[in-house]
Structure formats: structure tokens, C-alpha cells
């Protein structure tokens, strides 16, 4: 076949980026990748560090913690401890992807395929992103947030706002609705409704804290009604709506932090799927470019070298091991889904009767659209991938003196390994399960939270510090109880934390 490569050198130019983009987008269309329009921005390494430290928000409000992030990034980059990511991509419409000017044209093509078509189509197609984020509104919303917070700083002082943000950040991860579908966010509406909301919110809060209790609040059996009636998992939301002493601007700031947490929530739940998807597509697309004769052998060698580095998984006993590499796992799984569709073995037919031999493109799109990491692994992790990665499980029980190897990549272990790995990506397993349990509405107004431990894993050493932040938000005493609820027995409190700390704590 005659090769007519798009380029032969390693330097990139804007025309070349355009040409590659045109070819890549043709291939993406072949593979039915549905994307938002792309906005590719070429930036310098310093700008990449800026983008890094604003944790993926193209427009961020100011806070010292981003400065800390920046110092850390730039130090490690300068010392050569880390290369900068080749790209950062923003879930927005149009989808913004940053390319670094230091990249060669090969890397630029890789990044375009990876970010502008891989991630982009994931953002547009995955159900979590569809449910939780509104790509067309996010930039405007972030802009609104930044302006609002800097207005607050002008009015109430830098330090006041900074401290308040610290407190919000401390429980940011517990500021999302895990099950309820949130209303879409939009900057336009925010602005229009914000003033009204402030007034209304204050009214609502006042309602709750009315000092003269009404008679019917006593239930017929004399038992006092609990508030909230059901435990609430979204701490930030609960505080925004119910904290007695907050001023309207403070409620608005909580809301901003909450909305941003919510925007990132899908990304935290689809790391393996998202990175795997993007990696699968840059691999597939660039190989297709090669098959079409549009790139040179040298291009492919450079590409394969960085691709291999990206999907390298150090084994558990390597000094570089820091958990499972989401790129490796995700890429291996999508590759394997394609293999199962195209060349199923007996084993595959047994494990995946529905997809073995089916149309791979349809299947892989289905897998991308309808799952999150946990369910994706549970559904699609094949014995072959487990064997290839040599996955095994270790049990570490603090009541025993040994570790136990409970399952490995063999016939007996596949199911266990798969279930355990899936659980590892479940956010409510990764993070402690904490809910708002009770507010002493008629008494000292203290807020009681409940922690439901899984497998006896206790709360970490930061807990007291987080309670202090909660105390700042709520304004009254905070209690946190770790409670074991077993059927048939009474709830048993195994651990408790208080802010301010109880002076008369019984000695253990």
C-alpha cells in the first residue's frame, strides 16, 4: 500500500494539528463516537501547571489550597519527579482539551485522539455524566462562583471567607446526593434566583428554629419527632438548608462548593472506565491512521512507547507500586470486551453468553454508556484480564496475626476477585459512610452524625479536625458516633467523637 503520511517530522504546527484532527474525526465517526464540539487549546508548561493546580476547573475561585497544589506540582515538575500530563480535558460543551506546546506532533495526535474524542465521547455518553453534569453550563457556573466568592471576600474579609471555605472543603466529599438526581446547574438561573433564594432560605430556617413549639409536633405516642425524619447523606446540603446561624452569603458559598463537588462526582466514580475508554480509543484510532497509511513507522514507534508507559502496571512488590493503574485496568477491559465479541473462546461463551460473538462496537458503547467503575468491573471483568494482570486478594484483619490470600486468578477465585475489585471502586466503601442522624431541635441544637463502619474499619485520625470544621458551619455542638447496626440487636455505639471534645471522657 502506498503511504502518504500527514507529516514526517516531529515538529507540530497549527496546520498539522488541523489535518490530524480532520483525519482523527473521520475515524471517530467510523466508530460512532458521539462528541461535543472540540476546543483544543495549545498552552505552555507553566500554564499546564496552572491548569493542574486548579484541579481541572478552567475558572476557579481563589483559595490557598490551590496555591499549595501549585507549589507542589511545580516543585515536583522542576525536580523531574513527574512529567506533566500530556493533556487535561474539561467536561464542558464545547469540550476543552489542553495540549502542551512541548509535545511532538505524535503526542499531539495521541492527545487529540485520547482527550478530544475519547474523553469527550465519554462525557457525552455515560449515564452518570448525563445525570449529574450539564456540560453547557459549567463554565458559566464556575465564573459565577468565582465572582460571587470574590464579592464575598470584598464584603466580609478575605480571612473570613477563606476559613469558611476550608470548612466546606473538609466535607466536600460528603456533599453529594448519591442516589437522588440533582437539578441541572445553570449560571443564568443562579444569578436570577440567588437573591430570592437568600430571602426564602432564611425564612425556611427560621421556620425550623421557631422558639415556640407547636403542639402537634409531639407525636400521639408522646415520642418526640426526630429531625431529620430520615438520615441524610448529603452533609453540605443539610447544613446549607438547616444550620441555624449561617448568613445568606454563607449558605450560597456552601451551595457553590456542593455544586462543584457534584460536578466532579461522576469523574470520581468512573476513573477506570473513563481513562480506559480514552486509552482504548487513542490506541484504536492511531492504529487505524497507520492502517490508512497516514502516519509513518517512526510515528507509531514513538506513540507505542508512550502508550506502553501509560498502561504500565507495576506489580504489588515493586517500589513503584501505588495501587492498580486505572489506565491499565480500563484499557485491558475494553480491549478484552472487543476480543470477546470478535474471537470468543469457550470460556468467554460460558462467562459472557450475552456478548460473546456480538457486534463489538455496539457492545463497547453499551458498556461505556450504562455503568460506573463498580458495576462495570462486576459486569465485564473477564477471567482473561484477571489472569493477565495476575490479580489476587489479601485479607488483613487486625484481629489476626497473619495475612490471608483469599483468592487468586484461578477457576475458584475469579468470582471473588471480581467482586472484591468492584467493591474497591465503590465510593461508599472507599469513604466512610456518614449520615446526619439527629438534631436536638428543642434542646442544645447539637447535631449528631452517624458513621456506619464496614468490616469494623474505624474513622481516621483526621476526624476530630473535620468535626471542628463542621462545628464552624453548624454553630453548635457536633457529635459523631460509629454505630454497628445488626438485625435483631440494639444499635451499638462502638466509638464516638465530639466537638467541642467531652471533658469527662471515661478512660479506656
Amino acid at each position, binding site marked *: 500500500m502506498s503511504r502518504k503520511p500527514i507529516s514526517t517530522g516531529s515538529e507540530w504546527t497549527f496546520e498539522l494539528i488541523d489535518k490530524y484532527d480532520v483525519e482523527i474525526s473521520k475515524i471517530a465517526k467510523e466508530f460512532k463516537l458521539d462528541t461535543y464540539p*472540540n476546543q483544543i487549546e*495549545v498552552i505552555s508548561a507553566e500554564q499546564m501547571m496552572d491548569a493542574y493546580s486548579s484541579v481541572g476547573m478552567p475558572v476557579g475561585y481563589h483559595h490557598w489550597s490551590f496555591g499549595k497544589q501549585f507549589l507542589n506540582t511545580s516543585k515536583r515538575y522542576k525536580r523531574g519527579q513527574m512529567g506533566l500530563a500530556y493533556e487535561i480535558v474539561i467536561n464542558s460543551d464545547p469540550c476543552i482539551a489542553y495540549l502542551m506546546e512541548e509535545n511532538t506532533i505524535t503526542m499531539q495526535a495521541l492527545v487529540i485522539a485520547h482527550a478530544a474524542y475519547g474523553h469527550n465521547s465519554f462525557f457525552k455518553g455515560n449515564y452518570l455524566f448525563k445525570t449529574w453534569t450539564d456540560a453547557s453550563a459549567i463554565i458559566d457556573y464556575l465564573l459565577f462562583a468565582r465572582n460571587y466568592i470574590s464579592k464575598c471576600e470584598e464584603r466580609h474579609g478575605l480571612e473570613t471567607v477563606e476559613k469558611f471555605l476550608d470548612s466546606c472543603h473538609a466535607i466536600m466529599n460528603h456533599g453529594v446526593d448519591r442516589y437522588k438526581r440533582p437539578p441541572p446547574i445553570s449560571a443564568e438561573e443562579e444569578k436570577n434566583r440567588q437573591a430570592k433564594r437568600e430571602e426564602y432560605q432564611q425564612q425556611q430556617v427560621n421556620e425550623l428554629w421557631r422558639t415556640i413549639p407547636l403542639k402537634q409536633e409531639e407525636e400521639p405516642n408522646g415520642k418526640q419527632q426526630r429531625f431529620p425524619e430520615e438520615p441524610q447523606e448529603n452533609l453540605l446540603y443539610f447544613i446549607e438548608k438547616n444550620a441555624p446561624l449561617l448568613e445568606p452569603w454563607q449558605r450560597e458559598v456552601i451551595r457553590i462548593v456542593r455544586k462543584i463537588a457534584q460536578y466532579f462526582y461522576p469523574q470520581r466514580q468512573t476513573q477506570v472506565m473513563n481513562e480506559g475508554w480514552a486509552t482504548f480509543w487513542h490506541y484504536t484510532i492511531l492504529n487505524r491512521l497507520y492502517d490508512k497509511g497516514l502516519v509513518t513507522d517512526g510515528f507509531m514507534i514513538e506513540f507505542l512507547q508512550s502508550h506502553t508507559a501509560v498502561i504500565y502496571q507495576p506489580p504489588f512488590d515493586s517500589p513503584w507500586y501505588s495501587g492498580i493503574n486505572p489506565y491499565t485496568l480500563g484499557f485491558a477491559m475494553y480491549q478484552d470486551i472487543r476480543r470477546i465479541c470478535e474471537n470468543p473462546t469457550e470460556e468467554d461463551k460460558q462467562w459472557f453468553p450475552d456478548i460473546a460473538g456480538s457486534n463489538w462496537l455496539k457492545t463497547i458503547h453499551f458498556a461505556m454508556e450504562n455503568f460506573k467503575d463498580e458495576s462495570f468491573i462486576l459486569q465485564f471483568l473477564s477471567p482473561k484480564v484477571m489472569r493477565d494482570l495476575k490479580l489476587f486478594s489479601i485479607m488483613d484483619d487486625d484481629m489476626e496475626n497473619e495475612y490471608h490470600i483469599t483468592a*487468586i486468578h484461578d477457576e475458584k477465585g475469579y468470582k471473588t476477585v471480581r467482586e472484591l475489585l468492584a467493591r474497591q471502586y465503590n465510593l461508599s466503601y472507599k469513604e466512610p459512610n456518614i449520615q446526619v442522624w439527629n438534631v436536638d431541635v428543642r434542646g442544645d441544637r447539637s447535631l449528631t452524625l452517624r458513621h456506619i463502619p464496614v468490616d469494623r474499619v474505624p474513622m481516621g485520625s483526621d476526624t476530630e479536625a473535620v468535626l471542628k470544621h463542621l462545628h464552624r458551619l453548624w454553630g453548635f455542638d457536633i457529635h459523631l458516633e460509629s454505630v454497628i447496626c445488626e438485625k435483631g440487636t440494639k444499635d451499638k455505639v462502638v466509638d464516638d467523637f465530639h466537638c467541642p471534645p467531652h471533658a469527662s471522657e471515661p478512660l479506656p
Partner: protein
Amino acid sequence: MGATHVIDRRLNGKNKSAVNRERFLKRYRQHIKKAVSDAIDKRSITDIERGESVSIPTKDIVEPTFRHGKGGKREDIHPGNKEFIAGDILPKPPSGAGSGSGQGDASDSGEGMDEFVFNISQEEFLDFMFEDLELPNLIKKQLKDTISYKYVRAGFANKGTPAKINIVRSLKGAYARRIALTGKSKNEIKQLEKKLEVLKAEPEVKDPAFSNNDLIKNLEDQIQKLKDRIKKIPWIDDFDLKFNQHIKQPVPSTSAVMFCLMDVSGSMSQMHKDIAKRFFILLYMFLRRNYKKIDVVFIRHHTSAKEVDEEEFFYSRETGGTIVSSALKLMQEVMEQRYPASDWNIYAAQASDGDNWNDDSPLCGKILSEKILPQVQYYSYIEITPHEHQMLWHEYDKLSGQFPDSFAMQQIVDTGDIYPVFRDLFQRKKA
């Protein structure tokens, strides 16, 4: 296509994080101040050209969140199994040792770093240093401008701003150009006019066939044509414009020597020396601003004086009495041998706790007033003591009346007092 939009953002500002960084520095200013203060103790006084790395204990900087602690039962998946099979039992490493297999919450508890380390720039370093010294902003700025420039005339250029047009040069150029371009035509005119005169002088002939009128007419036309041509040459052209050119030149570029004199007798504690060190740094920075080459001479003394290197100057301990004049004598010798006042700008700073052997003080005054002060640009004496003044102070006090321009003395109790000495110095230099 058209769905993709490529934008070049490289020229947009790169310091998007500057505000956040600044806020971070503000929040941890106590830590940074301490790091800067430690660094000053460790650094050489001439070593002020760089920033500093600051480390903050991770526990002070962590942003707390609800996380899992250690303990309980965990079952995790890891890759890269080699020899394990289900049911294997492995001993746990003794508690406290890092778990090699990445067990437990290694990933939960941050990166296992004890210190958060980052760098501040030279400018920030100086800012933090100055903060202690209570320098006014103007002075801070002057000190930080590492090299000052002045603009000097440097000939003429063909391009420039209208404000810099050199009129004389431009007109000269225009004149020369006009001469050059019109010379040939003017010569021709001259010759033609001569011919014309000759023709006109000839007697008039009535017969038109022999008349010169045609010739005359012809010549006149030619002359007119040449004159028109000359007229078309512009009086001044873009090409003629000349502009004054200025270039930046560092100023001034002479050399200075700085003598650091310090009492190292037993009564000087490390605290005294630290204050003295800051004072010396400041003097050095001031000199660096004004002079291109600076030598520093360290002389320490107790009962006898010795020229030493910086390390020994600040950190070796001596005991015994104090004879200040020994240092002054040594300084005078060094000046004579190596730094004649004709070639060098001499500055000296003396730090002491005020102790001196009483009979020695008048001798000090004598050496200073006769040998040293007439030669130096500036001599500053700081007495680091919260106590009553002793003989030496009173002796020096007399000198400040005699040499108001080149002698300053000040009592210093803590670092905030260093500046007033400098205020004198700067005010004097500005005049």
C-alpha cells in the same frame, strides 16, 4: 469538519495561580519567616542572590476529610501475583514497619511525606527578611533592584519617537541630500546661463533667419526645466530624520570594600552575633546596589585582632577581655596595604556589646579620628546591648560631632532597631 476549534493560548498569562500561591504564603507566613530566619543564620552575608526552600510539617498543612483509619478487616486486590495460591498465610511485618505489599490505608494517609517542601523566590525571601527589620517600602524596593541603570546618549539612529528627533542633525542631513541631488543640475544651469549671457550680449540681428532669439528661447526653456527639477526635490525627507539614541548603562561601576568588625569576647552571645549579622547583610546589600565589585573583610577581636573568613567570624567562640583598638589598628593596616582610599570606597561596620577595657577607649577614638574616618565613606558603629553605655560609647559620641557625614552610631536592642542606622546612611547617599 468545523466542529473543532484550535486556539493558541500560549500568550495568555501564565500566572493564573499567582493569587492562590500568594494566599498560601500568607497563610503559612509564620513557617516561612522561621525558615528565612534560619537561612540567614546559615548563609554567608554575600549570599543573597537566591530564594530559599521552605518546609512545613505535613500535619500543619493537611486538609482534613472524613477517611478510614487503620484497623478492621480489609480485603484488597493487588496485581502481579507470582507464587501465592488461595489459602496461603503470610506473617505480618512487625507493627511500625512499613507494609511492603501496600496493605492497609497507605493510599489513604497521603503520600507518606513528613514535610511539605516548596521554594520561595529571592524577592520573597528578601521580603520576609525585611519584614523583621521594619524597612520602609521605598528602601526595600531600592535594595531589591539588583542593578540600577541610567540612560546615556549613544549617537543617533534613523528610527525613533518624534520626541527624540534631533533637529540640527536632521536638517543637516536634508541639506546635504539636497546638495547631493541638485549639484549636477545647478552646474548645468550655471553653464547654460553663461551661454545665455553671451548670446544676449551679442548685437541684435534684425533678420530673423540669423537672429539668436530661437537659441535664447531654447536655453531659457532648458534652464526652466532644470529649475523645476530642483524644486521637485523635497526639502526634507523621511530619510533625513535623525533621532537621539539612548542606551541603558549600569551605574556606577566602581569598587568598594566593606570592613566588618566584631567583638567576639565572651560577653558576645550568639544572639548578639545574629543581630550583627543582619546588620552586615543589610550594609552589604546597600553597597551592592551602588558598587559593582565589593570586597568584604572580616576582622574579629577580643584582646587581639585577627582577619578571618566568614565562617570563623560568626561562629567561633572566644573568651577573654576586650581591646577594641586592636581591631582598629588591624583595619588601618589592611587599608594601607590592600585598599588605598584613592582606589576604593571604604565602608566599615563595627558591632560590639559595648565592653571595652577602659584605658583603651580614648585610643580607639584617636585612631578613628586621625587614621580611619578621614579615609572612609562611612563608618557605622552598633552597640547591641540593653544596658547602660560604657566608656567606648561616650568616646565615640564625641566623634559623631566631628564627622557628621561619615560616622553613625546606634544602640540596638533587637532586630527592629537596625534600620535607623540605615536611614541615616540612605538619606546621606540620596543627597
